[in-house]
């Protein structure tokens, strides 16, 4: 389908370069992980996908948006978009390194010490050290700032962490975790927090996988029992943890969305395939839903282009504000549509790759509207930040 974006000649050269590289490298053994990985499929062959990360790194295709001075490729926004699009179009595996590359790396570049950068950026870039994220806690849920995990500094300057994090994806496949913990006893909410970097393989940390409804174990609980972070492995000052953590969430937005859309387009096409295979192409209700899904897909794509075009503008734009709610609900609906298109076949645990893939989509997309800000939190944010409606009044003391 034609695209509504003027392309510069150098961008088209760049596009040709990444397409050619992927064509030459995403083959052989790696065929097995094409279109695999990513949310809902993180357990797909992690060993091979780690190798793929190193392959990418050798080609210079990790950390493409980082400044050249920090070892990145220093691509423009337009070229990053092209990279993500073509990567997804080619079925590039879900990026095992994406938390390090898109979350921690940019934070270290912004707030890290020279020593921290020197220690951690190369491992991220090379695909040899993998990161996971320790924010959510069991009693906090959507109330992210309600952090109960404590930390304190020992005489030798090192930090100790005590507490529990939850919904940590890829914890069992990662080497390091970054954690927000309360360093000022008795402080509340977003005050008094520290942002610490800890190796996962240490006696003070244990990991318990959380079994999901379809049987996978993509998320984990991570328990900290006097776990140790080196003295130099605090980002920002003690008490600045919230600022770092929230700034890091900002990095999450926008850039990889066009890749996400290509991935969604691929899934949508699988649903069309399934519909043709199941012989339900003449069902008028299913046809309406397929068309509606396609409309949503186009709207998301154009919405993402709006977000990227407006990146220079200050503040959180309306189109950016709605995006999480929109894509997650769209994706959840796509999962349901996939099942209804399959009909009774959908209920049988299948070895057929197409059917199994759609079943995974159906079950895992139930989490889409919950993690990274539930629907309800998104609606609050939109109403308050996007429409200026009053915040929920604080209840009077009982």
């Amino acid at each position, binding site marked *: 389908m034609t695209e509504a974006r003027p392309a510069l000649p150098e961008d088209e050269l760049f596009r040709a370069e990444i397409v050619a590289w992927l064509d030459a490298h995403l083959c052989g053994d790696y065929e097995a992980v094409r279109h695999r990985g990513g949310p809902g499929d993180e357990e797909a062959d992690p060993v091979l996908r780690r190798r793929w990360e190193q392959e990418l790194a050798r080609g210079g295709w990790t950390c493409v948006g980082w400044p050249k001075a920090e070892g990145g490729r220093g691509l423009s926004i337009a070229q990053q978009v092209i990279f993500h699009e073509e990567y997804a179009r080619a079925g590039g595996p879900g990026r095992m390194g994406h938390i390090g590359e898109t979350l921690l790396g940019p934070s270290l570049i912004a707030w890290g010490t020279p020593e921290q950068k020197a220690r951690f950026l190369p491992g991220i870039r090379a695909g040899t050290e993998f990161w996971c994220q320790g924010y*959510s806690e069991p*009693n*906090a*849920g*959507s*109330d992210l700032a*309600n952090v109960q995990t404590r930390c304190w500094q020992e005489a030798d300057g090192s930090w100790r962490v005590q507490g529990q994090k*939850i*919904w940590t994806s890829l914890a069992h496949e990662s080497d390091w975790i970054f954690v927000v913990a309360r360093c000022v006893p008795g402080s509340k909410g977003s005050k008094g927090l520290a942002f610490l970097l800890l190796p996962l393989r240490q006696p003070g940390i244990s990991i318990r996988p*959380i*079994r*999901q*409804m*379809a*049987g996978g174990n993509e998320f984990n609980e991570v328990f900290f029992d006097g776990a140790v972070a080196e003295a130099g492995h605090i980002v920002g000052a003690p008490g600045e943890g919230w600022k770092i953590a929230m700034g890091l969430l900002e990095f999450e937005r926008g850039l990889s969305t066009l890749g996400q859309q290509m991935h969604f387009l691929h899934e949508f096409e699988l649903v069309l395939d399934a519909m043709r295979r199941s012989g339900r192409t003449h*069902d008028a*209700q299913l046809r309406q839903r397929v068309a509606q899904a396609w409309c949503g897909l186009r709207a998301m794509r154009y919405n993402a282009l709006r977000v990227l075009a407006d990146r220079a503008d200050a503040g959180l734009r309306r189109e950016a504000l709605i995006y999480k709610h929109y894509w997650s609900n769209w994706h959840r609906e796509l999962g349901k549509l996939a*099942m*209804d298109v399959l*009909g*009774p076949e*959908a*209920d*049988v*645990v299948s070895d057929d790759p197409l059917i199994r893939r759609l*079943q995974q989509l*159906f*079950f895992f997309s*139930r*989490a889409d*509207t*919950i*993690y990274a800000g*539930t*629907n*309800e939190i998104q*609606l609050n944010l939109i109403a308050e930040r996007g429409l200026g409606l009053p915040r*929920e009044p604080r*209840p009077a003391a009982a």
Partner: protein
Amino acid sequence: MHASEDQILIRDAAESFLGDVSSSAAVRAAMARPEGHDPEVWARIRSELGWCGLAIPEALGGLGLGAPELVLLLEQAGRHLLCAPFVSTVCLAANLLQQVADESAQARLLPLIADGRLQATAAMPATPDWASSAASLRAMRTASGWQLDGEIARIPDAGTAGLLLVLARVDGAAQPALFALDPSTHGLQLEALPTWDATRRFHRATFTAVALTTDARIDAPARSADGLKRAAALAQLYLAAEALGCAQQCLDLTVAYVATRQQFGRPVGSFQAVKHRCAEMMIRIESARSGVVGAAQLAATAADTTSLAMDCAMARVLTLDTQFYCAQEAIQLHGGVGFTWEYDPQLYFKRAQAGSHWFGTADALRAEISEALLS
């Protein structure tokens, strides 16, 4: 439409029994068993409780009650996700026997079901009646009786049933024929289907030159056309009652969770948006319950088949939509734990998707209703 004292007793007894034997832990244990249910619980249901005879006439060894009582039981079975061949035996097999079989077959088989000695089953079609299922199985007359060839896509609890009822098309006949056979009959192959919803087990059946004696055919031709419609309508109603129970439990689980789960210093259930969504679930559930109860009352009268079929389709449409909606909302309002294996919403969610095409999707049923309204 007032529940009688007997009906309240039946419902309360079911609720208390199932709360005991079909707890979340018990359901998970049953799901892990090869046969998909706990034989002891099933034995108690058949002998001690006599549920299988509830809607079978007294003359045939049953309690002589009907749809209004059965839907109360089934709602509780759905609420507790009872893993047992109860629906297959009572709502499919006994129902088909009562509506379609001739008197001698009824006299032979229904007392065995009523007193719990016989577990039976029949196809669970993916269309609003058994016609499509009958289309894939062909019966031919032979010198010694009948020969069956073809397949049946889904039969619940076929692995443990002692009797299988199948509908098969007969060349030149307008109505399919009903056969009763032993699932171990030569030429009949059962393949267990590994389903995401493990609370109800299905087999695919393949018939290769299955030879049956003449008396294996048990339909009463004069009643067959109307009887098949009534049996399909009643099956829809019974599944509707089960779905209603599932939806109710999703709401109950959710209300219990949001009433205690604290966020931002207050119970999640005190946030207005959460309250409204729970209220929305209750509105759908109560209206669907009215539909189920009303259709069941109608089934207890001498209502004509068309009216009965429409009301049962109505009950099924409303409960199907409500069941999925409530399961979806239960997951969402449970937040992070909602999509974990450990919490129960996922069990109801899987059941909702699996059940969405038993006896036709809501869309297909609406298409049938509109046809009746506009033709």
